[in-house]
């Protein structure tokens, strides 16, 4: 009786593996690289506003988009010119201020990448990503 139950359980597990393996093979080139950002790293525009002056805004968009418009006081730091822009940002960084990185909806992986590099390479703490990016800021401003 027990052996039969174990056999049935193993059979069910084996059956469950069939679609899983199939999916892994079929979607092998379609892996989602844009895994969701942990909630602890995301901040909304309202949360950011509540932090007041205690924030350093980092604009991770390309140069031309930053030049067109940006959050007042934001520092440009994109991966197009990482080696040039990083020292400029670090010169203005302060350990008692929170860092919020944003980009636009079109390039919204950029803010995540920049935030990760600030944490990993510069070993900075309190680095966040703005939920909804530049568009969310604009919407809130209206």
């Amino acid at each position, binding site marked *: 009786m027990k052996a039969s139950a174990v056999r049935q359980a193993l059979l069910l597990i084996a059956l469950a593996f069939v679609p899983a393996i199939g999916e892994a093979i079929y979607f092998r*080139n*379609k892996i989602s690289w844009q895994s969701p950002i942990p909630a602890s790293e995301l901040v909304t525009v309202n949360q950011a506003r509540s932090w007041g002056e205690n924030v350093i805004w980092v604009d991770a968009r390309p140069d031309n988009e930053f030049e067109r418009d940006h959050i007042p006081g934001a520092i440009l730091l994109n991966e197009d*010119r990482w080696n040039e822009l990083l020292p400029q940002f670090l*010169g203005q960084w302060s*350990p008692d201020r929170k860092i919020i990185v944003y980009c636009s909806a079109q*390039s919204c*992986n*950029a803010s995540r990448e920049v935030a990760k590099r600030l944490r990993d390479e510069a*070993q900075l703490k309190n680095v966040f990503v703005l939920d909804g990016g530049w568009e969310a800021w604009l919407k809130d401003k209206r």
Partner: protein
Amino acid sequence: MNTNFLKLVVALTALAQGARAELKWEQTSVDLKPALGDKQAVAHFKYENVGNTPVHFKSVHASCGCTTAQTQNEQVAPGQKGEITATFNIGGRTGTQVKTVTVLTDDPDPAHSTTVLTLKAVITPLLEIQPTLVYWQNGEEPKPKIITAKANKDAAIKKLDVISSVPDFTAKVDAGSAPSEFKISVQPRDTTKAVYATLTIKSDSPVNTGSMFAAAARVMPPAPATKSTLSTIRHDLATPAATAASPSQ
């Protein structure tokens, strides 16, 4: 009557199936391995119009500003082959990068009108620097702090030069624990005044001559006096012991 209606349906279906436009892609996903120090990675997405009516490109849109995509022609005649070239500007990016190009055609079949082309590139840096910032609190003992630079084995880096933008910091380079590793020892001359320096790191790599990397060193400004600190100071000044010890009394 019914027979005539059926004939009409069959004829229309045959006509609809006969007049079709379809772009067949050789591949919609390309894996690129740019060489060390490359500034761009280029992917070619080849297609062929396997239908019997022309296909028009309505839009070709890259997922980020770092990628540009170009079509050879705006219209693809039946049987015609061509390609979309996607150019990814690497800039200062490292690691695995996935960029997409969305192609929209006038194909009436929604299943074929939109195609997402994926470009994946793995970028290995010439030099991995960590941390890119070393700093000292104001008044902290000016002991050296270490920045580790790991060189890519293929870069054949034998020597690193580190130049501080201001004379307030010294930087010394030593060999690290691994053959392609360097330890950069950074030390401020004084930690009583706020100073900032850009550390420019140059390698002797024959792979990408002239490439420079950056790190930063800082002595932070004195912490601003908080309300509690100020009240403690005021309290100390008001006590008799503090008054007695005051040289002005």
